[in-house]
């Protein structure tokens, strides 16, 4: 499954503007020697991969806990929160599935657009949603919900931080490869 082409291009442009190294202008001779080794270097990030792996294992249990808790408190919620919470659950499930797939593909196959898509989904969508679930007291947060949301929130936080570092490394790596290609 590939990302559609216009989406890839947008994400590549975004990555290049945000993550590339502005301080690098002229390369020294030492840099040229270093970059010749680049074809064999691995830029996948281990902390990010570990976080994604454990997140993938934890997600079904988060889902079961959330559904059961929502079922238990459904009758004591006001009508608008019933609709909002069901929507938030569906949206979080779909986004989590897409996010984990993109994170795996981007990190293991060292693809920048996928990894950028994963990072944006984590920061802009999942993180506000999980904060909403944790800190909005009027949706009757049950203790088990607090437990599972805290764990998922910690996962998203570690993925945001390590994803940023991984994305920056990967963008600089691909940039230097582009630079090297002009000498072949």
């Amino acid at each position: 499954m590939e990302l559609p082409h216009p989406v890839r291009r947008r994400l590549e442009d975004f990555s290049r503007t945000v993550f590339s190294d502005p301080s690098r202008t002229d390369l020294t001779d030492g840099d040229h020697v270093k970059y010749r080794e680049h074809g064999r270097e691995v830029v996948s990030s281990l902390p990010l991969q570990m976080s994604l792996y454990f997140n993938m294992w934890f997600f079904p249990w988060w889902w079961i806990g959330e559904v059961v808790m929502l079922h238990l408190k459904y009758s004591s919620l006001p009508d608008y929160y019933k609709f909002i919470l069901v929507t938030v659950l569906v949206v979080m499930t779909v986004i989590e599935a897409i996010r984990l797939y993109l994170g795996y593909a981007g990190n293991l196959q060292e693809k920048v657009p996928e990894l950028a898509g994963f990072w944006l989904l984590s920061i802009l969508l999942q993180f506000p949603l999980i904060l909403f679930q944790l800190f909005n007291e009027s949706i009757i947060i049950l203790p088990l919900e607090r437990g599972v949301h805290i764990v998922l929130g910690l996962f998203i936080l570690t993925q945001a931080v390590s994803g940023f570092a991984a994305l920056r490394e990967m963008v600089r790596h691909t940039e230097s490869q582009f630079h090297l290609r002009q000498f072949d």
Partner: protein
Amino acid sequence: MPAVVSSLVPARFLTITAHLVIVITIFWSRDNNVKAGLPLDFTQEQYDKEDTDLVVGLSVTLGLFAVELAGFFSATAVHASASVALLFFLFEQWDCDIYWWILAICSPGPPLQCIRLLVILCISTVGMLDILGYICHLQVCSPTQPRV
């Protein structure tokens, strides 16, 4: 064998996470547990004292979780090498003084903290035994002075 080993890691992670979720759940619903340990007519001070005790116990548990998760995520190589050292101690029947030295490292002191983490990791095994081992260690360490 590799298939069995590779499914142990998520299994262990899920048990640790389940334990953590339950501890957080107890923390947020401790009202009934506190009332269960008090007489039917209790004063507010008794309630506060019991509540504080339970909070302290749960906080210690959360601190131990930090140690356990650090050991889990960093490397099992630390665990393995420390287990090897302890096996040597057991089978070669080292002097008991050496064991007191290992225990004495539990006493506070900034340069010894990292060694202490190693010792904690090496005494522990999986899951509940980690926490039990650490508590036993605390019991033994605090009144003990190292014999040089």
